[in-house]
C-alpha cells in the first residue's frame, strides 16, 4: 500500500482532528511597534500644555465657529452643484463632434486645471480691478463689479468654476466607461443623441461617476478653507478672527481641525452608502457595511472555532 493511501485512511478514520491555527509572529511585532508609537503620540498630545485643551473646549461650540461651519457647508454644497452641472455640460462638449465646441471645453479645462485655485480666488476677488463695470455686452446693462463680487460670490465663482473642470473629467470617464454598444443600440432604435445621453448613457455612467464625486465633495469641504484669504467667514477664518484677538493660535486651529474631521467623517459615511447603492446591478454581492463586518469578525473569531472544535 502506498504512503498516500495510508494517509487518506488515517484521515478518514480520524475525522475530528483538531485544527491548530497558524501563528503570525510578524503581525504581533508590527502591532506592538505601532501601539508603542501611538502611545508616545498620545502622551505628548495629553501632556503638552501648548495644545490648550481647556481653550479648545471653550471655543469648540462658540457661536462664530458654528456659524463658520454653516458657511463652510453652504459653500461646499453650492460649489459642488455648480461643479457637477457645469462639469456634465463640459464633458458632453468635450466629446462633441463639433471641433470648436470640443476645443472650447478643452481650453476651459486646461485653464482651470492649470492655474492654482488660490490664484483663481484672488483673481475673482479682484475682478473689479479688471472690469470695473460689468455690461455683458448687452446695451442697458451696467453693473458695478464691486457690488456684485462680494467675497462670498468670488468664493463661489472661484471654487465652483474650478471644480467644474475636475468634475468634467470625472463625468467624461463615466461616459466613456459605458459600452459603445449601448449608444449603438439606442441609435438603431431611432433614439436621438440627447435622449440617448440622458436616458441610456448617463444613468449607467453614474456607477463610475459617484465614487470620485464623493471624494471631490470631501476635498471641496477642505478646499473651502482657502477662501479665508479673501475674508469669507467660514470655519477657518472664524477661528483666525478669534486667535487674532486672544493669540490662542494652536487651540483654535485644533478647534477648526476637529470640526473638519467630524464633518468629513460624516460625509465619508454618506459616500460609503451612496457607492453601495450605485453598485447594485454591477456586482453580485455588495461590499459589507461596517456593522456586517463586525458581525462577521465576531462569528469567525468566536472562541469555539478558534480551538478547532466542531459545532
Amino acid at each position, binding site marked *: 500500500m502506498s504512503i498516500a493511501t495510508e494517509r487518506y485512511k488515517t484521515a478518514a478514520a480520524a475525522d475530528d482532528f483538531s485544527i491548530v491555527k497558524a501563528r503570525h509572529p510578524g503581525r504581533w511585532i508590527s502591532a506592538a511597534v505601532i501601539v508603542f508609537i501611538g502611545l508616545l503620540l498620545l502622551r505628548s498630545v495629553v501632556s503638552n500644555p501648548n495644545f490648550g485643551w481647556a481653550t479648545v473646549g471653550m471655543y469648540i461650540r462658540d457661536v462664530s465657529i458654528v456659524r463658520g461651519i454653516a458657511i463652510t457647508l453652504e459653500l461646499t454644497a453650492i460649489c459642488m452643484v455648480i461643479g457637477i452641472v457645469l462639469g456634465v455640460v463640459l464633458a458632453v462638449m468635450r466629446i462633441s463632434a463639433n471641433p470648436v465646441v470640443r476645443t472650447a471645453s478643452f481650453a476651459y479645462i486646461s485653464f482651470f486645471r492649470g492655474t492654482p485655485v488660490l490664484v483663481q480666488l484672488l483673481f475673482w476677488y479682484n475682478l473689479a480691478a479688471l472690469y470695473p463695470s460689468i455690461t455683458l455686452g448687452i446695451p442697458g446693462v451696467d453693473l458695478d463689479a464691486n457690488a456684485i463680487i462680494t467675497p462670498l460670490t468670488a468664493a463661489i465663482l472661484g471654487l465652483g468654476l474650478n471644480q467644474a473642470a475636475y468634475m468634467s473629467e470625472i463625468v467624461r470617464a463615466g461616459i466613456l466607461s459605458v*459600452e459603445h*454598444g*449601448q449608444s*449603438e*443600440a*439606442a*441609435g*438603431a*432604435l*431611432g*433614439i*436621438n*443623441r440627447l*435622449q440617448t445621453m440622458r*436616458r*441610456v448613457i448617463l*444613468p*449607467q455612467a453614474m456607477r463610475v461617476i459617484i465614487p470620485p464625486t464623493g471624494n471631490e465633495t470631501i476635498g471641496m469641504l477642505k478646499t473651502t478653507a482657502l477662501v479665508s484669504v479673501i475674508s469669507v467667514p467660514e470655519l477657518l477664518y472664524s477661528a483666525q478672527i478669534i486667535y487674532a484677538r486672544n493669540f490662542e493660535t494652536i487651540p483654535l486651529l485644533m478647534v477648526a481641525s476637529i470640526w473638519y474631521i467630524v464633518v468629513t467623517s460624516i460625509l465619508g459615511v454618506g459616500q460609503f452608502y451612496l457607492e453601495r447603492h450605485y453598485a447594485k*446591478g454591477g456586482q453580485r454581492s455588495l461590499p459589507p457595511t461596517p456593522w456586517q463586518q463586525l458581525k462577521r469578525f465576531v462569528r469567525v473569531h468566536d472562541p469555539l472555532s478558534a480551538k478547532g472544535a466542531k459545532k
Partner: protein
Amino acid sequence: MSATIMEATTTAKALEPMIMANAIRKNYGRLEVLKGIDLQVGRGEVVCLIGPSGSGKSTLLRCINHLETIDGGRMWVDGSVMGYDLKGTKLHEQSHARICRSRVEIGMVFQHFNLFPHMNVLENLIEAPRLVLKEKRSTATARALQLLDSVGLADKAKSFPRQLSGGQQQRVAIARALCMRPKVMLFDEPTSALDPELVGEVLKVMKDLAATGMTMVVVTHEMNFARDVADRVVFMADGHVVEQGPAKEVIGNPQHERTRAFLASVR
C-alpha cells in the same frame, strides 16, 4: 400587387426590393472593407450573409441602417436613399435626427444583445416607442407584453437583463426591435455570443418571425438555419459578394472555390 402573388415566388419578391445596395464601398483608413457591393433584398425575403470573418458582412449590415457611413455607392431602403435626401441630382446629407427617424423602420439585433442593463425587460421594450414614436405608456406596455409573449418571455417583464440567460436576452432584444414596428430586421450574428444549448431558442424565434413575412437580413454562421429559413444565401469574402443564390444551391452545391473552402471549414 397583391400580397399572395408577392409571396408566391422569390422572383416576384425580387421585383420589389426593400433594400438595394449599389456599389457600396467602405474604408477604415487605408483598409478597404467593402469593395463595391451590389445586393438586393426583396420585400418579405430572408437573406443570410455568410463568409469568413473580416469579409465585410457585418459592416455591410451596419451600412444598411447607417450605423456606418459609406464611402461610395448608394444604399436604398424602402425607396429612399439611406442617410441622404435626393433633391434633383444632389444628395444632401441628412441630420442625425432625420437618420434616427429612418432607423425606426429598420430593426437591428446585435451579437452582444446590447440591452439597457439599468432598465428591466419591459422598460427596455417601451423606451424607444415612448421616446421616438411618442406612444402612451399603456399602449406601449400592452404591445410590449404581447411581443414578449410571442418570444416566450411573458413572465420576465420585470426581470433585469443581467438576471436572464444569453438566449433570453437575445429574445428580449428581438422583441425590443419589433416594438418599433420595423419593415426590415437586421441580425448581426445573433447567436454567436450564445452557449450552444441556447442557440436553438433564438433561431426558433427568428424562424417564426420569417414565417410572418418579415424582410430579414441575417449575418450568421448557422448553416442549418441559413439552409432551412433563408430564401437566399449571399457568400462574401474580402469585401466582395462571391456567390449568391437560393440557400440550398449555395450551401448544397457551391460553385466557387472560396465558397467551397469556407463551407468545408465551418462544417
